[in-house]
Every structure is written in structure tokens, then in C-alpha cells.
């Protein structure tokens, strides 16, 4: 049997900001429908990895293939890449001057030039999917953090991405609203959406993740399936991190 090639393939990626080497040879694969979780201390380069996958930050060397398309290519079609790769941020980053529904509709209409009526119908469906029916006309400032984050997820879904990158999306939320966002992400995972999750929610990672990666200072220290990873991580750096956080 010949397994399908991974949807996302990160190979030996290096990245410097000035003199500081933030990524020192990072490699991992994500298959279609898989959920991988990246955990690690603050400053270890997790956000930078996600930004590189989305070409928000250029890499110095290595290779990132998204659905066979090389991201580290000067002739990269960024529009095509960003259609495929959605991103959700810690601070939601909704557009405050637009309603929730408009936030969801903007990119498909203005960037993908899709039919407005069709996009609107899809936006209503997505609002329902993230359990925000009735909040379509609310402005971000009128929504709670958890609600805003779910709008951000809907906004990302509106582009019909193949893979979504989540960068500590519950880190800025009140404990009560963390759960509603995690429920939404779990439902996406169950629907078969490919997800890369940077998270500090270990319980969630263990439950939803197919694979866990632990990063420290720009390298992947170790990785494994959730059960084995949490039960028998070997590296002292991983152990120390898990002891602190669990």
C-alpha cells in the first residue's frame, strides 16, 4: 500500500530574526484529516512555525510543502496558498468596524470574488456551525472573547481551507469561554478538517490530537502519539515542561 503524500510537509526549516536563530531545523508532516498539536515553552518558535507555513514570514532555508506546493519559492502564488491555509490568532484579530457576518464574508467576496448571495448563505451556515446563530449582526466589540474567537474560526472556514493553523487560540480567553471554543475545534476535527494546533491545553491535546510535538528553542525535542507522549516522554526538557504545566 502506498500512503497518500502528506498535506503539509515541513522539512529542516531554519529561520533567523536578525542574529537570533528562532527555528533551527524543524521538520514534521501532517496528513489530510490529521490533528497535530505543538506544545512548548513561550518563545520556542511555535508561532513562527505557523507564520512560516502561511508565508506571513519568509524562511531562510528548508522546505515547506502545502499540498505539493513549495511555500519557500519566490514565485509562490500567495493567494492560492492562503486559500488552502487558514489561520486563527490568539487575539482573534477580528475587524472591529465590521459585523460578525461581514467579517466572515469579506475575504470570499473581495479576495476570491465569489458571488455575494452565495457567500452570505455560507456565512450564515458557518455562524450556525460555530453556534453563534443570532449574533450575525453584532460587532466584535459586543461579543465575548470566546464568541469573537468562534467568529474568527468561521471567518477562516469561509475560505474553504484545506488546513487551519490555530495559534494559542484559547490563551487570551476566560476559563469559562475556553471550553466553547475547544468544542468548536473538536467538531471541526471530527468533520475531518486538518488542524495544526499550538496550545497549552494539555487535556485537549491529549484528547483531540493525533500527534504531539514538543518544541524548545527552535527545535522539535520529541514527538509521539498523545498517550505515549504524555505517559513516557523521555527528554528532560519535555518532562520539566509537562511537570510545570500539568
Amino acid at each position, binding site marked *: 500500500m502506498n500512503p497518500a503524500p502528506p498535506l503539509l510537509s515541513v522539512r529542516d526549516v531554519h529561520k533567523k530574526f536578525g542574529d537570533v536563530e528562532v527555528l533551527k531545523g524543524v521538520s514534521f508532516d501532517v496528513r489530510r484529516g490529521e490533528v497535530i498539536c505543538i506544545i512548548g515553552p513561550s518563545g520556542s518558535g511555535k508561532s513562527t512555525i505557523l507564520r512560516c507555513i502561511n508565508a506571513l514570514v519568509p524562511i531562510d532555508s528548508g522546505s515547506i510543502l502545502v499540498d505539493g506546493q513549495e511555500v519557500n519559492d519566490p514565485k509562490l502564488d500567495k493567494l492560492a496558498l492562503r486559500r488552502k491555509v487558514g489561520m486563527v490568532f490568539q487575539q482573534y484579530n477580528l475587524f472591529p468596524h465590521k459585523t460578525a457576518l461581514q467579517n466572515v464574508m469579506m475575504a470570499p467576496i473581495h*479576495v476570491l470574488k465569489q458571488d455575494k448571495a452565495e457567500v452570505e448563505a455560507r456565512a450564515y451556515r458557518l455562524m450556525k456551525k460555530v453556534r453563534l446563530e443570532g449574533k450575525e449582526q453584532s460587532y466584535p466589540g459586543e461579543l465575548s472573547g470566546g464568541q469573537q474567537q468562534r467568529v474568527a474560526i468561521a471567518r477562516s472556514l469561509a475560505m474553504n481551507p484545506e488546513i487551519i493553523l490555530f495559534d494559542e487560540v484559547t490563551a487570551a480567553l476566560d476559563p469559562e469561554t475556553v471550553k466553547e471554543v475547544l468544542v468548536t475545534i473538536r467538531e471541526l476535527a471530527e468533520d475531518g478538517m486538518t488542524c495544526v494546533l499550538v496550545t497549552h491545553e494539555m487535556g485537549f491535546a491529549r484528547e483531540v490530537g493525533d500527534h504531539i510535538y514538543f518544541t524548545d528553542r527552535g527545535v522539535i525535542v520529541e514527538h509521539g502519539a498523545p498517550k505515549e507522549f504524555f505517559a513516557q516522554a523521555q527528554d528532560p526538557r519535555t518532562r520539566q515542561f509537562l511537570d510545570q504545566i500539568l
Partner: protein
Amino acid sequence: MKVLPVILRPAPAPWRAPVLDRRHGLFLALGLVLAVGAAEAQGAAAAHPSVLATLWRWTPLLMEGFVFNIAISLLAMAIGTVMGVLLGLGQVAPSAALRRVAWFLTQFFRNAPWLVLLFFAMFLLPFEVRVGGVTIPLPGWLKATIGFSLPVMANTAEIVRGAIQSIPFGQWEAAESLAFSRRRTLWMIILPQCVKRMLPPWMNLYSLVTMATVLASVVGVTEMLTLVSEVHAAEGGRAELLAPLYGYALICFFLYCYPIGRLTVHLERRFQVRI
């Protein structure tokens, strides 16, 4: 328990341009009444016509001058705003060279005295320009307007730059991750959020321009202040008429600028709560 005094000290209030308030108006009105009263008393002794009647008689002419001031201020504001927005955008352009040029122009025109810019415009601009085969005359008032539009441009550029840079970087990043181009991000996402922040300081700027238009009298444009001095001369240059005439002009400017100032304060408050 030790309390950190640094944290408890309130942050210094940011500097704000002074805004006309009711007391200014009251003060002006009172001054005018006193001046008119005093002049009436003196005039009556010398059997001159009433000061109020004199003011009334010249009002149509003075108003013509005042309308001219307003026209100059509006036109200068329009020209300066368009150029200022471009210059402000230039200061956040991807090209470093463009950014530097825009920054220099902004600083230069922002820190030059308005009267100096006015003189430069009056004496450096030709009295007519030829565009293609058409000759466009540049009368003095138009040159003065261009002179005023220069500081408007520089201040607007600074307002635009400040507002753009006050928008969190996450907005750019979110837009980019949704495949918005830089230009589209600017026009659809960043600038609409800037309008609220730009409007109050921009309206303040307008009040300043309106009051500055009287400088045009120095370079021979027949705006209100020029007319006031001509009226004064026509009335025989009587000293007791000086205060009523100039007070009258002051009141006109106050009545025009005061509502703008109130609206600015109102908008500032409203936007502060909303954002």
C-alpha cells in the same frame, strides 16, 4: 505591605489642542459690548453717528470678507487633506526611500511658521500657469490658499500616519492570512478604522486654518481683516472705532469656530467610549 508608587501614579494626560469654550464667547461678547458702549459715549459727545449703526451699515461688506475667509479655509483644507493623505500613506509605504521623502516633507512643512509658508506661496508661485495650451491665472487669494494648504497637508499627513500606526499589527496579519493584498488591507480594513481617530484632530486643524486665514491680509488679500481696516479708514480712522470693529471680526470667527470645537469634543468623547 509595600505598594509600588510608580504604578499608582496616574499617567500624564496627553497634550491636547486648546478648544474654544463658552467662556471665550462670553468674554468676547462682554468686550464688544464695553467697546461699543465706550465708543457710543465718545461718539455722542462729538456728534458722530451711532457705532452700532456704523457696524450695521458695513456688515454686508464685512460679511463678504468673512465668507471669503471661509472659502479660503475650506479650499485650503480640501487641497491640504488630499495631499496630506497621500503624504501620510507615503510615510507607511513599503519603499524606504518613499518613506524618508514623505517623512522629510511632513516635518519640513509642519515645523515652518504658517506666515513664512504664506509668503513663500505668494512670492514663489507665478501669477499664472500654463497647462497645455490653457493659461490659468493664479490670483493672490488662490496663492494664499495654496500657502495655507501646505501646513494643512503636513498636519494631515501626521494625523494619518499616527492613526495608521495606532492600529494593532494583528489587523494587518489577519488580513494577510485571508489573502488580502496590502493595498486592499489599507483601504478596506485599516483606513476605515482610522477615520474615527482622525476626525477630531482633523476638525481641530480646520479651526486653526480658519483663524489663520486672516494672515492673508498681510500679503494683500482682501479678506475680512483687510476690509475691517479699510472700513476703519473710511470712517475717518477714529480711534474709538478700532475696538468695536476688530471685536466684531473676532466674534464672527468665534461664532463659526465654536460649534466646530464643540462637535470635535463631542466626537472625541463618543469615539473614546466606542473603541
